[in-house]
């Protein structure tokens, strides 16, 4: 399994600002994913990020709101732009590497927008 870290672990932000969340993996992985978990809800996939290509966004999520970078095989960032209280959620990074069909999750970033 992969060891995944996220920064920050939590943050409180004002509406209209942006926050960039970092995801670091201890091994090279082909695919990285960003999920959102709204309070008391299940996980929803925001986008899939492959190194060297544009992220693929799920329905309901757009690049202008959630720009993603994937500069190498161990790192990715998700930015939540122009935040509103509705963006208050836990954002989780997930990876799938090599021949493994399993996904592993980071500890998450708890975002509160006031």
């Amino acid at each position, binding site marked *: 399994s992969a060891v995944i870290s996220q920064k920050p672990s939590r943050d409180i932000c004002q509406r209209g600002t942006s926050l960039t969340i970092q995801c670091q993996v201890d091994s090279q992985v082909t695919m990285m*994913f960003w999920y959102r978990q709204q309070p008391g809800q*299940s*996980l929803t*996939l925001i986008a899939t990020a492959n190194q060297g290509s544009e992220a693929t966004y799920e329905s309901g999520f757009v690049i202008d709101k959630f720009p993603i970078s994937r500069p190498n095989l161990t790192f990715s960032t998700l930015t939540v732009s122009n935040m509103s209280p509705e963006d208050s959620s836990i954002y989780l990074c997930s990876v*799938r590497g090599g021949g493994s069909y*399993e996904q592993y*999750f*980071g*500890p*998450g970033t708890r975002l509160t927008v006031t």
Partner: protein
Amino acid sequence: AQTVTQSQPEMSVQEAETVTLSCTYDTSESDYYLFWYKQPPSRQMILVIRQEAYKQQNATENRFSVNFQKAAKSFSLKISDSQLGDAAMYFCAYRSPPGVKLIFGTGTLLAVQP
């Protein structure tokens, strides 16, 4: 579209007893994977067990086992000899290859009573 349903928002079990968490799914695919993930209060998602649809044998991991009924599209998780550390939110998830997207149920919050 594929969906995953967990009809038990909350469950409770006595320590050392056995509990079964339910999950049903809807798909027209014949090849897919099913997963149970555990999310403790610390929120690090942990893969508990996985099942390949083409395998008739139910997966088992120590105290965790599944009852996979493909025709009924049912995938329940049995936890034997429950321990206090089993208290968590449990998510059922589905993935159909070659897709990489995990589709999650709404989760079941399991409490373990001493």
